[in-house]
């Protein structure tokens, strides 16, 4: 500082600063635009679900009206009831749940340790391994499913939920491994080392410290696995004949069904994934009043 301001006791005596409020207004305008975009994107997701829902709860006659009302005017559970009571739907729902949960458990049991290995250890061939993981997704499901169907027919796994579980596990392993490896990467290695210093075996340290800290992330990957399995239709259709999962069942029967029935089927497909996500969602949020660390 060569020149000092003309001040008394260090307090400036100049006129009040004129504040230019234009940048502030621009900032507020941008914020409003972002809000608007969020609302539009949400509507894009929610409106079809809403329309399907009110259609599924309308009477058959109500569905033929034009224009359609935007609220359930002709409320009726008749269509839904008919759909749920029709042949194979309940069994297919149970099959889908079995397959979804089975896939979730198997993919987590196989995928999480692999993710841990990628996160924690430097090993030969780590990069090719990660690339190779994605190969299962590079092949079309049809290409995978037809040889699999033959193998399953030979081994007696065909038309069994376990066969579909194996296929879905194979399909979801890449994402499970990559998601869990980034989750384990975010668990501080110091905490794991501290556990070992204070007397934990490597496995003990994993179970007592790493796993609890990684649980929210593992839950997130589990949601993803479940929803993927729930929605997968092609492989499930090829690998089953009578023990269909819900999407496979709906696909094979709805084509010949009346419109009301299709809406009921659509709603039945959506609801379990929404409920599952709602339940698992809390694991995504802070479990101990904080994110990790």
């Amino acid at each position, binding site marked *: 500082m060569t020149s000092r301001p003309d001040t008394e006791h260090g307090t400036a005596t100049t006129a009040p600063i004129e504040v230019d409020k234009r940048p502030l207004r621009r900032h507020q305008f941008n914020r409003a635009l972002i809000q608007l975009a969020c609302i539009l994107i949400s509507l894009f997701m929610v409106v079809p679900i809403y329309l399907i829902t009110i259609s599924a709860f309308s009477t058959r006659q109500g569905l033929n009206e034009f224009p359609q009302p935007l609220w359930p005017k002709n409320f009726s559970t008749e269509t839904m009831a008919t759909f749920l009571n029709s042949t194979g739907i309940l069994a297919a729902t149970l099959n889908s749940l079995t397959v979804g949960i089975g896939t979730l458990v198997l993919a987590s049991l196989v995928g999480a340790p692999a993710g841990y290995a990628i996160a924690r250890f430097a090993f030969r061939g780590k990069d090719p391994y990660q690339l190779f993981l994605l190969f299962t997704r590079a092949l079309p499901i049809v290409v995978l499913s037809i040889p699999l169907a033959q193998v399953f027919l030979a081994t007696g796994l065909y038309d069994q939920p376990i066969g579909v579980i194996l296929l879905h596990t194979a399909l979801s392993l890449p994402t499970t491994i990559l998601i869990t490896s980034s989750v384990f990467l975010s668990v501080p290695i*110091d905490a794991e080392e501290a556990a*070992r210093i*204070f007397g*934990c075996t490597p496995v003990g340290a994993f179970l007592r410290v790493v796993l609890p800290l990684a649980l929210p992330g593992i839950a997130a990957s589990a949601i993803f696995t479940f929803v993927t399995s729930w929605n997968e239709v092609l492989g499930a259709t090829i690998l089953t004949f009578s023990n269909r999962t819900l999407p496979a069942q709906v696909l094979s029967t709805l084509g010949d069904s009346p419109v009301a029935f299709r809406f009921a089927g659509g709603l039945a497909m959506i609801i379990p994934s929404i409920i599952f996500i709602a339940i698992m969602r809390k694991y995504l949020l802070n479990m101990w009043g904080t994110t990790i660390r």
Partner: protein
Amino acid sequence: MADITIQNLVKVYPGGNERANDDVSLHVADGEFMVLLGPSGCGKTTLLRQIAGLELPTSGAIAIGGRDVTYMPVHQRNLSMVFQSYAVFPHRRVRANIGFGLAMRGMSKAEIDKKVDWAAELLQLTPYLDRFPAQLSGGQRQRVAVARAIVVDADVLLMDEPLSNLDALLRLSFRAELKQIVNQIGMTTVYVTHDQSEALSLGDRVAVMKNGRITQLDNPLRVYSHPANTFVGGFIGSPPMNFVDGVVHDGQIDIGGGSFRAPEGAEDGRYTVGVRAEAITLGDPADPHTVPAKVLVVEPLGSATLLTATVGEHSIKVQVPADTQVAAGDQVKLSVPPSAVRLFDLDSGEARTP
């Protein structure tokens, strides 16, 4: 509690060629507070992690309390440790964090509670026992980490830069507290730091490390006043030791631009001459043994004033009392007491004790 013996320890990281630890031998006595000091990359943390078992040595041996632990699994070594990043468990309450080591040792609930309460009291954590670490400040989290380390009846306490994540003021107050606590429990302690003031204030002995080797091992005052080489003299002290090239002849050191008395018994020859800033005083201009200098910069530090002065072509730091009247551009006379002068080999930088 136990002593630690390290013999000819060598560590080469996989994929690396350099020795992170190069033939390190060290004995830490039972109950001693040993500080490993050095710049980053000198191998001090590697050495600590090998004692802990978190890294395995390439060759050499480590024994704790006479028991070989060189390749023993971490959890069997009966250690405790404080980490730089605290490494408290975010998903456990403070009480469970402190009692973690005790629970792992299979202690009864009542006994754990008793010891946890004792440690919490000692570290002023009693009001926070039922909180999660995320609800604590950084300083409190580090207290939890220290409490967790001292409740267990471990052979050795290891500390890896435990104060470096705290802010300056907290670091200073916690340092004194830490020294008191460790003195009280009398545990054998190995403490890693790159902060020389921490090393000097805490250690019974300080091992100064450079390039994977221990370059000087001595008590703190000795390390400060009699550095084994120019590296130690330059690393320890704030400001670091002044080094100038000089020629000793007839009991006089000529540094070009002035000369002063050499320490007794110094042999004639060329040396690197080292003097601490606070050993130099502004002398009487009539004294023939003073060195003429020109003041370049005056930095008041509050407790003292730091001068940067030029003697011939050398730049020298001088620390004078805070009330000294001196301004930039002044011509002064520097008085260098012979007892404060250290001579180092011109090529190797090793101390040449007269």
